[in-house]
């Protein structure tokens, strides 16, 4: 059987949307080199935008207002800072203010190691403001499910993609083990690293649950998410964005509030992602995740056994 990658999934869902739903796909330099990592189909409805990072987002939102369900491609998430204004100030607020939804599907692609303004993951920005749903699918099945959610709903959606996922063909089921020492909640590309970290740690006798996070907003602390934490007594949220005021801290806070257990947050250091190797400030890899888990586990006390419930 042919292996279907995340990139294939994105491309074929887009093709169906453009050819059969009258949808649009807008972005800069999308139909040239590599067709955005082979995620953009060669078909009708492709709109090459001029290099205009504020107005371009406005065009997409305008098309959303009149029912075209546009897919708006941001090739590097850092560009969301310029493109964010029409999305956050207009698309996100339109339904609540006027009862007029502006369902734009924003494909924001994360990467790593390619310099200060091409390596970012800034989805926390869209969690902060009201109006957008925010998700980070890393598997073909997840991508199909969030696409369905977009089509059946009327909210704008920020889809935090990551290049590290594009060749992935596999689903990522939660890893749950009895008597785990900690529950890991990885986000975006750190999910691949968290799985590796759990293996590394298992060899040392540290047992980790891995509960994969697809939806950042709304983030629901349901049974699937909470139960492993209640069993393990402590948790760690891992995100490829910056730590300070970032997604990991926000989710850790929610988990901690809901369960009364200590949940730590691991993201990027507060430093520029430089191009050169030692200063790239890359997303938390398996080694870094494992190191953080060792520190937490070594510290001993589990929230379940302590009276606290705070944030470690």
């Amino acid at each position, binding site marked *: 059987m042919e292996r279907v990658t995340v990139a294939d999934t994105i491309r074929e869902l887009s093709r169906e949307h453009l050819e059969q739903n009258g949808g649009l796909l807008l972005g800069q330099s999308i139909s040239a080199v590599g067709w955005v990592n082979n995620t953009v189909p060669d078909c009708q409805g492709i709109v090459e935008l001029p290099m205009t990072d504020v107005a371009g987002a*406005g*065009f997409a939102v305008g098309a959303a207002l009149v029912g075209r369900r546009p897919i708006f491609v941001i090739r590097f998430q850092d560009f969301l800072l310029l493109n964010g204004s029409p999305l956050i100030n207009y698309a996100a607020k339109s339904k609540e203010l006027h009862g007029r939804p502006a369902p734009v599907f924003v494909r924001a692609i994360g990467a790593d190691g390619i310099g200060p303004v091409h390596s970012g993951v800034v989805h926390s920005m869209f969690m902060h403001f009201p109006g957008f749903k925010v998700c980070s699918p890393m598997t073909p099945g997840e991508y199909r499910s969030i696409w369905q959610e977009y089509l059946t709903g009327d909210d704008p959606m920020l889809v935090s993609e990551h290049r590290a996922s594009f060749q992935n063909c596999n689903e990522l089921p939660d890893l749950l083990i009895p008597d785990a020492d900690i529950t890991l909640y990885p986000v975006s590309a750190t999910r691949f690293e968290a799985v590796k970290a759990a293996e590394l740690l298992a060899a040392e006798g540290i047992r980790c649950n891995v509960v994969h996070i697809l939806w950042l907003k709304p983030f629901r602390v349901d049974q699937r998410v909470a139960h492993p934490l209640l069993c393990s007594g402590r948790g760690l949220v891992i995100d490829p964005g910056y730590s300070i005021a970032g997604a990991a801290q926000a989710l850790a806070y929610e988990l901690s509030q809901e369960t009364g257990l200590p949940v730590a947050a691991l993201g990027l250091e507060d430093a520029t992602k430089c191009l050169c190797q030692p200063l790239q400030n890359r997303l938390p890899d398996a080694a870094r995740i494992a190191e953080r888990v060792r520190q937490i586990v070594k510290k001993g006390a589990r929230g379940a056994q302590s009276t606290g419930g705070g944030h470690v």
Partner: protein
Amino acid sequence: MRRADYGVRPDASGSFSKAETLALYESICRSHFFDSQVIDAVKSGLTNYQVYLSLGQEAGPAALAAALPGAQLFTQHRCHGYFIAFGGPPEKLRDELLGRPSGSSGGRAGSNCLQHHDERLAMFGHHGLIGENVPLAVGAAFGNQKKTIAVFGDGSAEEDYIYPSLGFALTHRLPILFVCEDNDLSILTPTSTRRSWEFTQMAKGLGLPVRDLADDPWSVVQAVRELKGELPAVLNIRTCRRQWHVGVGCDGPPEWDRLALVQAELDRLGLGAERQEIERQAQQEMERLWNE
């Protein structure tokens, strides 16, 4: 050039039928008396939300509605005049200004973020960033290919997303009219303090058809009728607001009083009695509306 007769066509009114002229004036008057009532509502404390009045600028929207009826609108903060001229129900506007659930946006958006959608009118607005409505208008025109008007001011014309909006509309030959309501002010900072270039020259440089004139309604209708066959295009309307940028205050008489000039023209045309009757009816309609 700031003059009440800048670009105004000599005897423009002469090419309009009496019915057209009176309809144009009725539209101006309804907007005028609506906003006059808003001043009273604010002064009496009926509402304390911020209001952006169209007083002094009523002629532009009235002329645009006459020349491009049924266009989908993307207006910005000073938009009561567009709402009324393009056939929005005044009671919905009133209720929106009062923050009532029966307002056009359920009372949640208010004067500067006005929208209205029914079978007669598709009016989108902005959310408070000047000119943000312009790329939205371009995207909407691209998306549904409907005749579209994007309204902004001489201040918004400087926003960095305006130039690419004009460019994209031109590239894709979109049916959109860009209307710059040029009062030569960004709140109170004159254009000459802000920039050395002319917006109309920028638009011409891109290759867009441009008309640049004061807000004489007959001349504006003529200009728009010329442009509507060659959209996308730019219309720069020299105008002056009577009240403050926001609120009901006034810093003295405007550079020109378009309403008085239109009234004088109607009298010259021998339509003095008709104009007084239109004024009486419009005033009565809006007083009744606000006293309900």
